[in-house]
C-alpha cells in the first residue's frame, strides 16, 4: 500500500487537474500530449534541482539558496554576446560559477560550522542581491541568438539533458560508496566521523553539486524563456523542497531516493500547473471570491507539512 501511495496520488492529481489545462476526452491523445509536453518542459529544471536537493537533505542539511543560485547564473549568462562562441565562453563560465556558488555554501557549512539553514538563507539573499549588480547596464539577452541553445528548452533536448543527469547520475549514485557515506553523515554525523568518513569534504562536495545543478537548471530555464531578470525563479526553492520531501526524503537526513524525488517533482509540477490553469477557468473564477492562482503558496506550504507528516508515519520510526 505504501509503495503505490505516491504514484496513485499523481494519477489522481492529473485526472483532476488536467481538464483545467485543456485536456479533453474528444481529442485525448493530442490534448494530453500537449499537456505532458508542457509539463515536462516546466518540470525539467526542477528535476535537476531536486536531484541536488535530495542529496543535500540526505546529508542532514538543506539548501535554501538554489533558486538564487539559478537566477544568478542565468543573469550572468545573459550578459554574454550571442553567437556560437556562447558555448565556449558562457557555458564553461556558468559551470564554474555554479560550482563556485555551491562551494561557498559548502565551505560555510563545513569549514565555518554555520548551520546549513542559516548559511543557505544568507546566500539566498546574497546571491539574489548580486543578480541586480550583475544586470547593471545589461545589453540584450543573447539566448535566442545562440545556435542550438533553445533546443535545450524544448523537448526532446531538455529531457535528454535531464535524463542523462538523472539516469547516469542516479545510477552511479545508487551504487556508490559516496552515497552511503552521505547517508551516514545525515544519519549520525559523530558516528560517521568515527567511521573515518571525511565529513567536511563530503559536505563541501554535496553543496558544490547542488551549485552545478543550479547552473544546469539555469541553462534549461534560459533556453526556454530566453531571458533572465533579478526576480526570476522567486520561490522556486520552496517548490523543490516540497517536491523532495513529498518524495520520501527526510528533512532530518539519513534517508531519501532520487526516484522518490522525481515523483515528488511531478506531483508538485502538476499541482502548480493546475493552479495556473485554474486561475483562467471561468467555471472556477465565477465560484471563488479570490484569485485562484494565489492558492499556490498556501497549497505548497500545506503539502510540505503533509509530506513531512506522511514520511514520518511511513518510516514506522518514532523520533527519539
Amino acid at each position, binding site marked *: 500500500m505504501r509503495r503505490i501511495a505516491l504514484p496513485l496520488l499523481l494519477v489522481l492529481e492529473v485526472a483532476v487537474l488536467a481538464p483545467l489545462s485543456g485536456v479533453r476526452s474528444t481529442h485525448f491523445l493530442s490534448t494530453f500530449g*500537449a499537456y505532458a509536453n508542457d509539463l515536462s518542459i516546466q518540470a525539467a529544471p526542477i528535476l535537476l534541482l531536486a536531484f541536488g536537493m535530495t542529496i543535500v537533505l540526505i546529508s542532514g542539511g538543506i539548501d535554501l539558496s538554489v533558486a538564487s543560485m539559478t537566477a544568478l547564473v542565468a543573469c550572468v549568462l545573459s550578459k554574454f554576446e550571442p553567437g556560437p562562441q556562447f558555448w565556449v565562453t558562457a557555458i564553461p563560465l556558468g559551470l564554474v560559477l555554479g560550482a563556485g556558488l555551491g562551494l561557498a555554501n559548502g565551505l560555510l557549512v563545513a569549514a565555518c560550522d554555520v548551520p546549513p539553514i542559516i548559511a543557505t538563507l544568507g546566500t539566498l539573499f546574497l546571491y539574489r542581491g548580486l543578480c541586480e549588480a550583475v544586470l547593471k547596464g545589461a*545589453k540584450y539577452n543573447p539566448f535566442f541568438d545562440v545556435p542550438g541553445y533553445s533546443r535545450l528548452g524544448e523537448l526532446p533536448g531538455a529531457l535528454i539533458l535531464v535524463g542523462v543527469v538523472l539516469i547516469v547520475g542516479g545510477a552511479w549514485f545508487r551504487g556508490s560508496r559516496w552515497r552511503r557515506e552521505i547517508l551516514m553523515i545525515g544519519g549520525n554525523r559523530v558516528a560517521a566521523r568515527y567511521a573515518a568518513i571525511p565529513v567536511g569534504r563530503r559536505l563541501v562536495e554535496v553543496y558544490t553539486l547542488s551549485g552545478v545543478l543550479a547552473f544546469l537548471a539555469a541553462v534549461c530555464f534560459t533556453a526556454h524563456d530566453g531571458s533572465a531578470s533579478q526576480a526570476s525563479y522567486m520561490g522556486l526553492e520552496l517548490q523543490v523542497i516540497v517536491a523532495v520531501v513529498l518524495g520520501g526524503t527526510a528533512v532530518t537526513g539519513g534517508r531519501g531516493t532520487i*526516484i522518490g524525488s522525481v515523483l515528488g517533482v*511531478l506531483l508538485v509540477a502538476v499541482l502548480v*500547473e493546475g493552479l495556473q490553469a485554474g486561475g483562467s477557468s*471561468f467555471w472556477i473564477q465565477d465560484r471563488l471570491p479570490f484569485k485562484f492562482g494565489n492558492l499556490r503558496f498556501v497549497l505548497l506550504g500545506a503539502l510540505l507539512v503533509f509530506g513531512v507528516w506522511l514520511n514520518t508515519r511511513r518510516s514506522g520510526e518514532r523520533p527519539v
Partner: protein
Amino acid sequence: MGMITALDPTDSVPSSHKLKHPPAYAGGSPALLSALALVLIVLAGCSQDSVGTASNKAGAGKPRDQIVIAMLPKLTNIAYFRACQEGAKKAAAELGVRLIYDGPTDPSASDQNKFIETWIRQGVDAICIAPNEPKAIKRLVQQAQERGIKVLTWDSDAPDSGRDLMVNQVDDKRLGEALMDEIARQMHEEGEWAVVIASLNADNLNTWRKYAEARATEKYPKLVKVDTVVTEEDVDKSRKLVETLLNVHPNLKGMIAFDSNSVPGAAEALKRTGKAGKVALCGNSTPAPNKDYLKEGVLESFFLWDPRQLGDLTVRLAVAAVEGKSPKAGESINGSPPLTLSPRDPTTVIMSPEPLKFTKTNIDRYDWGF
C-alpha cells in the same frame, strides 16, 4: 536510536540492525513503472506536437458568448494596466464575449510565457500580449497560430514574431519626436540630457527612445545624451536612480522618462534634490501621480493617451480577428471609432495618431482616477 537506514537491501548488515519497516522507495517497481509510463506519455506528446484542436478553426462561426479573449499585460499591478483592464472589460461586456485579463506581478517574460502556454492548451480564441521581451514569444505565437488561435500584440510590439495584428496606442515616430521637441524647447536646444526608461528590452519604450534620439541628432545637434537609467517599472527605483543620476551629472539640463512609473519617480527626485525648475523633465505617464508635480512646476508637461481606450480597442480588434474581419483604414470595426493604420506597417492599428499632452492648464479636465 540512530537513523542509519539501509536503503539497499543487499547491504551486508546483520538482520538485527535492519529496521522493521523500511521506507517505501528502495527503487521499487511501482515507482519505476510510473516513471516509464511518464516517459512514454511524453514521447507520445512529442509526436503530437502540431495537431490543432478542431474547436479553434471554427472561430468565424462561433456565437459571441462562447468566444474567449485572453489578454496579457506586461504586469498587472500598476495603474496603467489596471486602466487598460477597465477598458477591456467594458468592451467585452458590450460585445458579449468572455474576457480573461491576467498577467505576472513583475515585468517578467518567463512568467508571461507560462500564461500563454496555459491559454494555448485551454484553447482560447485569441491571445493579446503586451510582451516584456519581444523575442521571447515567437515560438509561442507560432504554436498558438497552429492551433487556430489569433495572436495580437498591444501596447508594445513583437515585430518579428508573426503576430496577426498590433494595436498601438500612438504613432511611435510622432510620440518620440513630440517628446524630444518638448524637452529641447525646455532646454533651449542645448545641454546634457539623460534617458530614464523602464527596460531596454520592451519594444514600445525603446522605439520611442530611438525616434527621440534620432530627432535630437537631426534637429538639435547641441543636445548631448550623457546617461541611461533603467527603472524596471518601479517608482521608488526611479526616484533613487534619478537622484544618483543628478549627483553624477551636475550639469544635466533635461531628462525624458519613457514610462508611467519613471516620470513621477524622476519628478520626486527633482523635488528632493532641489533641482526642480533647473532640470527639465518630460515623458509619458498617467495623470494622477503627476498632477501635483505639474501644478508645482516640477514638470511642465507630459504625454499619454487613454489606456482604457487602448484596452477597449484591443478587445474589439481581437473579436474581429476571431470572426475573420480585417481592419480597414477609416472604417470602424465592432463599434470602435474609425481606424487609423500605421503608414509603416499595415498590420498595425494606431489608436491616437497625435499623443495627448497634459499641462497645468488642462490637467484638471482629466480626472481619470489613475
